[in-house]
């Protein structure tokens, strides 16, 4: 078979896109928009409550899944867009896009482990 790792790349992209479609609007609303607009009390996001909420393995797993998959989705989309816009240095674009996604994912992972 002539194909390489494309199915993996695309599967992650599709999973991230699907996850983003289902959860991102609610996440944005509940975490920052609601608080910013004053519709959600600031206490909901207080330091103590947030740290407590992120203790369970389920919560950590959920946050990691959201972070990794959605970052991957955005990174892949931007990589393709760079190609469409005529940027031919695909290797460099991949490094930047997936690199940032990887760094963000690792950072989140380390923080969650330490909480």
């Amino acid at each position: 078979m002539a194909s390489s790792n494309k199915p993996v790349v695309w599967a992650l992209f599709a999973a991230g896109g699907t996850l983003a479609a289902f959860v991102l609007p609610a996440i944005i609303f509940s975490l920052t928009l609601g608080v910013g607009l004053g519709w959600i009390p600031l206490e909901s996001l207080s330091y103590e409550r947030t740290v407590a909420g992120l203790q369970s393995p389920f919560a950590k797993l959920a946050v990691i899944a959201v972070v990794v998959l959605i970052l991957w989705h955005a990174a892949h989309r931007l990589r393709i867009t760079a190609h469409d816009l005529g940027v031919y240095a695909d290797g460099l674009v991949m490094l930047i896009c997936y690199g940032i996604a990887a760094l963000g994912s690792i950072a989140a992972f380390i923080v969650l482990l330490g909480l």
Partner: protein
Amino acid sequence: MRQAFRQLEVLRYDPDTDSAPHFQTYEVPCQDDWVVLDAINYVKENLDRTLSYRWSCHMAVCGSCGLVVNGESVLACHAFLRDYPEKIRVEPLGNFPIERDLVVMIDDFVEKLRTVKPYIVSKKERAIEFGETLQSPEKLAAYKQYADCINCLLCYSACPQYGLNDNFVGPAALALAHRYNLDSRDVGRSARADVVASNPGIWECSFVGACSEVCPKNVDPAASIQQMKIAITADYFMRLLMPWRKP
């Protein structure tokens, strides 16, 4: 029937005498129910016999008269003058080398079509004496839409990925691969995967969707490609996790 003059700005290119394509403008007295093809035919018959172009059925079933009119990939027999301004720019199909005037060389597509095995691959060859293979209307409905392709190549003209990389197998060829993959009489899915699942196959597609927008037969090649992405990804992971499984 009202008649009004329109300006047809047509791309001309004679490889024997021209160094590059250039535009020539014709004043054409058009009936208001005409299509672009009628105007071009008028030019050929009355104004300029040297104009070269393809056409045949004049009713959007043969797929011969694909052109780019005012920047859009259309069938010339399907593009009504009433939908266009007075000045109409007529160019050959995009993304294909120009042979002469409005005629392009489509060999690349024909070769790619060949490689996707656009025919029924049977489990066992049956002799004619055994009669037809029966197929229910439901089984036909599963793939019929993708069988409607008339090979007009408007999709290749509109596809920006094919424009960027002409190794891309392309919308019509992939849609036809899907048509056969979905046919209950066919077992050739893994045979086609060599081409379909390769990097210049479905993976070159970024789901822009221009192909489906311009398709005059509502084949929806974009949908066929996305469906194959899912199917091939599923195949990939199943082979990875369950290598003993037969494809």
